[in-house]
């Protein structure tokens, strides 16, 4: 299984853990993730206005760089922007012509654009994954937190049932965890309101964490660095049971029996091999 891999800014910065864990797990699972050369920003936001084409330049450049091979990302926001930009390229000929002319690339909307979770579910299969688990997360009460960007709009994202998703719970089951469900798993965490209106994010996060406590979760998994930031930094914990926030891939790596130093060494290995291939 071979994929082009788009990391995005946060995966090289604050969400380094998510990348390291994913890379180690992918290697253990026989999934080849080949990082795009000289990748740039995903575009950060998908333009919702017809004449806002400038924010399409980045994602379309990235989509074209995959050269028709399946393109995988880890960050929910990157995946959202890439997937929606692809859909627009397929649907809107006028926008496509303007953007591709400007970029001088030839891209008409081809290629699979996948989140790594979809690779695990659709290409590897959770059954197969379950067989490869070495240290099942037995007795760990974990809940999934989906947030917004992977699920909505469902017609474009086609990720899972937008109101009743199951992909993360199915992953947790495959990893042997004791899965619990919180009703707030598809509600917004407050997104970048934590930058401008931190109070709003505190309220949304409090609801999510309280509902997780209510169902007895000791940890939440997420696929979005911003969700994780908000869930950790906007949480007001006074006297409440703390809830640990993980990237999904961290628990994945753990269940596959990968140790932290292995993660680091695999990251180094990767850097070395990519340097080799450049030479």
């Amino acid at each position, binding site marked *: 299984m071979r994929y082009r891999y788009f990391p995005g800014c946060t995966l090289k910065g604050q969400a380094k853990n998510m990348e390291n864990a994913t890379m180690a797990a992918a290697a253990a699972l026989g999934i080849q993730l080949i990082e795009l050369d000289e990748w740039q920003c995903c575009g950060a936001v998908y333009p919702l206005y017809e004449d806002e084409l400038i924010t399409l330049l980045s994602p379309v450049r990235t989509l074209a760089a995959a050269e028709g091979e399946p393109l995988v990302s880890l960050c929910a926001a990157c995946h959202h922007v890439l997937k929606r930009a692809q859909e627009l390229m397929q649907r809107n000929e006028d926008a496509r012509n303007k953007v591709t002319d400007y970029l001088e690339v030839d891209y008409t909307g081809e290629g699979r654009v996948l989140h790594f979770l979809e690779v695990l579910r659709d290409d590897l299969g959770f059954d197969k994954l379950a067989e490869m688990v070495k240290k099942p997360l037995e007795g760990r009460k974990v809940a999934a937190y989906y947030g917004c960007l992977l699920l909505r709009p469902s017609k474009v994202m086609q990720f899972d*049932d*937008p*109101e*009743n998703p199951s992909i993360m719970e199915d992953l947790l089951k495959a990893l042997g965890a004791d899965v619990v469900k919180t*009703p*707030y798993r598809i*509600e917004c965490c407050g997104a970048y309101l934590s930058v401008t209106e931190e109070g709003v994010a505190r309220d949304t996060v409090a609801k999510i964490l309280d*509902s997780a406590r*209510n169902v007895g979760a000791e940890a939440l998994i997420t696929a979005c660095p911003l969700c994780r930031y908000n869930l950790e930094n906007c949480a007001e914990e006074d006297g409440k049971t703390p809830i640990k926030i993980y990237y999904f891939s961290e628990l994945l790596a753990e269940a596959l029996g990968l140790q932290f130093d292995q993660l680091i060494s695999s990251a180094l290995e990767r850097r070395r091999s990519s340097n080799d291939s450049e030479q």
Partner: protein
Amino acid sequence: MPRTGVFICHCGTNIAGTVDIEKTVKASRSFPGVVHADDYRYLCSEMGQDIIKNAIKDNNLDRVVVGTCSPRMHEQTFRKAASEAGLNPYMVEVANIREHCSWVHRNMDEATPKAVALVRAAAAKAALNDPLEAPAIEVEKRALVIGGGIAGIQTALDIAEAGYVVDLVEREPSIGGRMAQLEKTFPTLDCSACILTPKMVEAAQHPNINLITYSEVEEVKGFVGQFDVKIRQKARSIDPVKCTGCGICYEKCPAKAPSEFEMGRAKRKAIYVPFPQAVPNIPVIDRENCLYFKKGRCQICAKECPPQAVDYEQQDEILERRYGVIVVATGFDQLDPSIYGEYGYGQHPDILTGLEFERLFNASGPTAGKVVRLSDGKPPKKVVFIQCVGSRDKARGMNYCSKICCMYTAKQALLLKEKLPDAKSYVFYIDVRTAGKGYEEFQRRAAEEYDVAYLRGQVGKIFPENDYLVVRGVDSLSGKTIEINADMVVLAAAAIARSDATELGRIVGINSDSYKFFNEAHPKLKPVETHTAGIFIAGACQAPKDIPDTVAQAGAAAVKAIGLLSKELLKGEACTAEVNQAECSGCLYCEAVCPYNAINPVEIEERYHGGTLQRTVAEVNPSLCQGCGSCTVICRSGSINLRGFTNEQILAEVDAICLQR
């Protein structure tokens, strides 16, 4: 040379507002064969028809062209007028200058030349018209009613009372339909069973009604007056003659399955009657869940049955009957609200649909008439009702209003307060719609005297927390977010067409709208007719409907059916296909495409080089042919023509439009 008269109708301003009538009349005078042209404000009126009749006599007309509305509206009117003036009715042509012209244009300069062209085409066709005679059809004096709910029962009773035999076919083991599931009916709060069961019994005992339950219509052939129908009578596994309805069999049966009648919220046995007042009171064995049929063991019902009525060997039977008319009354289904993930239906036992909640009030329902939570059996203190779950929703549900929900919700909230005075109801609504006699007053009573809180807005999320359901919504009038810790939630799920409605429509030969509800022939003037002569519709299979409207429509459908059955002979289709057998190559493609089985091969003898030759050609049975024209289209040698729509006539129309611009 033909002597054609042209008459242009203003239709008030419907046509005259967009088409220059004077110009159209003037232009008509120049068409070949036209010897007279006139106009009138409403040609379909008595005065208008007299103008046509007088002109036929005064000008010795032998053809008439009327530029007016769709032939579907008034072709019959003008044909009748012409025949009263001594003309063969098929010498009349209608040019549709309303639906095809004035209604679809805004600009008079565009519409007028188009109207002239349409009239010119009709005149060109009329010049080639021949007088036609419609064949006579004998009427089979027997009616078929499909569907045994209140609509079908009422229709059957009304037809039977007029003296005609009715077969009432019902798919379920008992008649009764949706109304049998209801506890009380708005706005009078009559007990549903109290007013329905007598009608069920009356239908069963009526000498002119045959109940054919646990049966489905499989095939309909023929046409008005003579429909040939195949009905599959599913094996009940019970001998109906021997069975006394004692009920010992289902008391003893060890196998259980979800009860359809209780919307899956209670169990029934594998041998069962759907509800205690079932008519006929004869059980059926559900073979999918019966231990004997599944595993070959058990047979307790057969052993326990005093009159030994259980018959495991029974087979499905096919009844073949001929009917003069058919009434379709197959009712409605309820939308499955689990498509609305935010409401959590299907994930928590205390989130119910309206019909499921209704069953909780019923003494024979899942809770024996106690309104309690299905999760823990406790009576609810707070109940939230949500309106428009799947109705008025073009994104995920149905774009239409289901019409009955506002009223049944008010009824249920009111009944709840009577049953549990401590309970409080909340209704989230978009608009409260209570058009109907006594409806508005009823809903206001619920709000004012029964403490039902109406909140104008929708619900965003429902989820369980502790031992209640958190309902988060908004009251758009105050702009306040509302959060209610409810014990139960009732979703007014949209009333939708039966899932297999399209399939039945195909079998019977009637069409459906985009929601799969059966189409009436005209939304105002032919509300129970369909586009197929002799087939009528009644009740919620046409659109969501309450009981008063359903019963009224059922009566109307019965009257239409009786009107046909009371005739000895019907006029058949005059515009039938005919084969030019000298040119027919005998490929019989026409036989394959004919939907009415009206074409058969015949052997003819032809003289050929002095000798004779036997050849197979097609022949049309004019009493079966309905003039659809499929055969003329498929005919490779062009040797089939449709009387009244011959190839020559149609080409003359095309020429008149294209060549004489």
